[in-house]
C-alpha cells in the first residue's frame, strides 16, 4: 500500500463510550488520527471523505448490521483495512471473508497496537510506544 501524505487515520466504531475513549487514547500514542463513531450513521459520516486507512468496528453497533457497515466502509474507503473488535467469539461466517482481522474484547492494548501496526505497515515501529 502506498504511504498517504497525511497521518494514518483510524475510525473507531463502538457504541460504548469507554471503549471508544480508551482506543482513541491508545491509538493516539501511535501518532494516528482517530475518528469515533457510536453508531452506523456516525460511521457513515466518519468514513465519508474516504481518507480512512483502518476501521475498528464493533459487530453490534446500532444500525443496519455488520454486513451493511462493512459495505458502507468499503464503498467510501475501498482501501481501508477493517478490524472487527467484538465480544463475540467469532465473526459471522458470511462477513469473515470481507474483513482483514478480528480480535475479541477485552483485548490487551499492546496486542491491539501490534495488530494495528500490522494492518498499517506504513507506520514506523518507533511510533509505537
Amino acid at each position: 500500500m502506498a504511504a498517504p501524505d497525511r497521518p494514518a487515520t483510524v475510525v473507531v466504531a463502538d457504541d460504548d463510550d469507554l471503549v471508544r475513549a480508551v482506543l482513541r487514547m491508545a491509538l493516539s500514542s501511535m501518532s494516528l488520527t482517530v475518528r469515533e463513531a457510536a453508531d452506523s450513521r456516525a460511521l457513515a459520516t466518519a468514513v465519508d471523505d474516504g481518507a480512512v486507512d483502518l476501521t475498528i468496528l464493533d459487530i453490534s453497533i446500532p444500525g443496519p448490521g455488520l454486513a451493511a457497515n462493512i459495505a458502507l466502509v468499503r464503498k467510501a474507503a475501498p482501501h481501508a483495512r477493517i478490524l472487527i473488535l467484538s465480544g463475540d467469539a467469532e465473526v459471522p461466517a458470511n462477513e469473515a471473508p470481507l474483513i482483514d482481522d478480528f480480535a475479541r474484547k477485552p483485548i490487551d492494548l499492546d496486542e491491539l497496537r501490534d495488530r494495528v501496526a500490522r494492518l498499517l505497515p506504513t507506520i514506523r515501529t518507533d511510533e509505537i510506544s
Partner: protein
Amino acid sequence: MSSLSARAAFGGAWSTHWTIWAGLYPVTLPFVVYRDQALRPDSVWWSVGSATVQHIAVGLVVVGVGAILRRRRSILPVGLVATLWILACVVRAAVAYAVTAVGYAERSSLVIDTLIWLGISALWVPVTVFAVAQLDQRRLLLAARDITTDALLTERAEGEETSQQLQARLLATVTAQLTPVLADLQASLNAARRRITGSTAAELSMRISRVHDETAELVEGEDTPDTSPALLERAERVTFRRAFEITTVPPARMAALVTLATLVGVIPDTVRVYGPIVSLQVALAVIASGILLAALPALFAERASRGKRMTHLRATVILQAVAVAAAAVILAVIPPSVWSSAQWPVVPLTLLALALAHTLYSVAFIVADANADDSAALSAASAELDAVRGQRAERSRLARERMAQLMHGPIQGRLAACVMALNFHAEIVTSDPARAEAMLDAVLEHLQGVTGELHRLGAEAGLGDVHHP
C-alpha cells in the same frame, strides 16, 4: 447394547473361560465313573483320578490355549473355538486311554471314546457357553436398561422446563454469581482510587476480566447431561435373581434338544456298561419325559392367558420336576426294574442328565429370547432419550441465544470496556494522572451500569430483588 448373537457368544470369552471349565468338572465326573464300570478299574478312585486328569488336560487345551489366542484378539473365530473343543475331546479320550493301561482290567477304545465325547460335547458344551454368555449379557443389559430408564425419567421431568423458565434459571445463576463480585470490585476500586497504582489497576483489570469470562461461560456453556454410552460403560451387572425375573415359560421347541442331549449323554455308555435292554428302558424314559416337556408349556401358556403368569424359574422347576419324576417312574415300572438291580446307577445318572440338560437349554432359550426383547426395549428407550435430550438441547440453545443477546452489550461489553480502561489506566497513571482519574470514574460508572442492568434483567425475568452481599 444389543442382544448377544450366537457368533458373539461362541467367539467371546466364555467359550474358553476357566469358570465354565471348572464348573463342568463335577458334571463330567459321575459320567466318567459311570462309563469306567465297563472297563473294570481296580477301584473307583482310578475312575475319579482318570476323570480329574482328563479334565485338567481339557483345561490346558481349551482354557490355556484359549488364553494364549486371546492375547491377540478378544473375540475368536467360531471355527477356531470349535477346533479347540474338538481337540479337547480327542485329548480327553487319549488321556482316558492312557490311564486305562495302568489301573484297569480293560483298555478303553480311543476311537469310540473320541466319538462319544464329540457327541456329548456337541450337545452340551455350546449350549453351556451360550447360556452363560446370554446370562452375563442379560445382567449387563438390564443394568443398562435401568440406567437408560432413569435417565429418561429425569430428562422427561427436566424437559417440562420451558424455554422461558430455563432462561430465567440461567439469568438467576448469572445474577447470583455476578452481583456480589461486582459489588466487591466496586468497593475495591473506590477504596483504592486515591492511591491506585499501575499494578493495582492491572490486578483489578484481571479480576474484571475473569468476571467477563465467567459470564461468557455461564451464558454460552452447555448443560447437557452425560451421554448414554459413557453411562452404560459404568453399568454394573444386576443380580442373578433379577436376571431370572422372566415371566416366559420354557418353550416346547427345546424339548427335542433336551431329549437328544440326555440320550447322547447316557445311552452310549449305558450300552457298553449294562447292555441294550437297560439302554432301551432309559431311552423310553427319556423320550417320555421329552414328550411331557413339549406338552406342558401349552398348559402354562393357557394359564398365563388367564392372567396367572409365573416366573421362568418356577416354570422351569415345575417342568423339570415333572419330567424327572416321570422318567424315574418309567424306569421303575418297566420290567425288569433297574431300581432294585445292580444297574441302579443308571437311574440317578439319567435323572441328573435330564435335569442338567433341561436347565441348560431352558436358560439358553429363555434368556436369549428375553435378551432380544430387552435389547429392543433398550434401543427404544435410548432413542426416546436421545430425542428428549435433543429437544432439551434445542430449548437450551434458544434460551442461551436469547441470554447472550441480553448480556452481550449491557453486561459483557461494559465489563470488557472496564478491563481495557483499567489496562490503559495502568499505562498512564504516572504520566497523566488527571486522565487516569477520569478513566477510573468511567470504569466505576460502567460497573454500576452493569449492576443496574443485572437488576433490571432479573426483575424482567421475575427473579425478584437480587440482594447485594
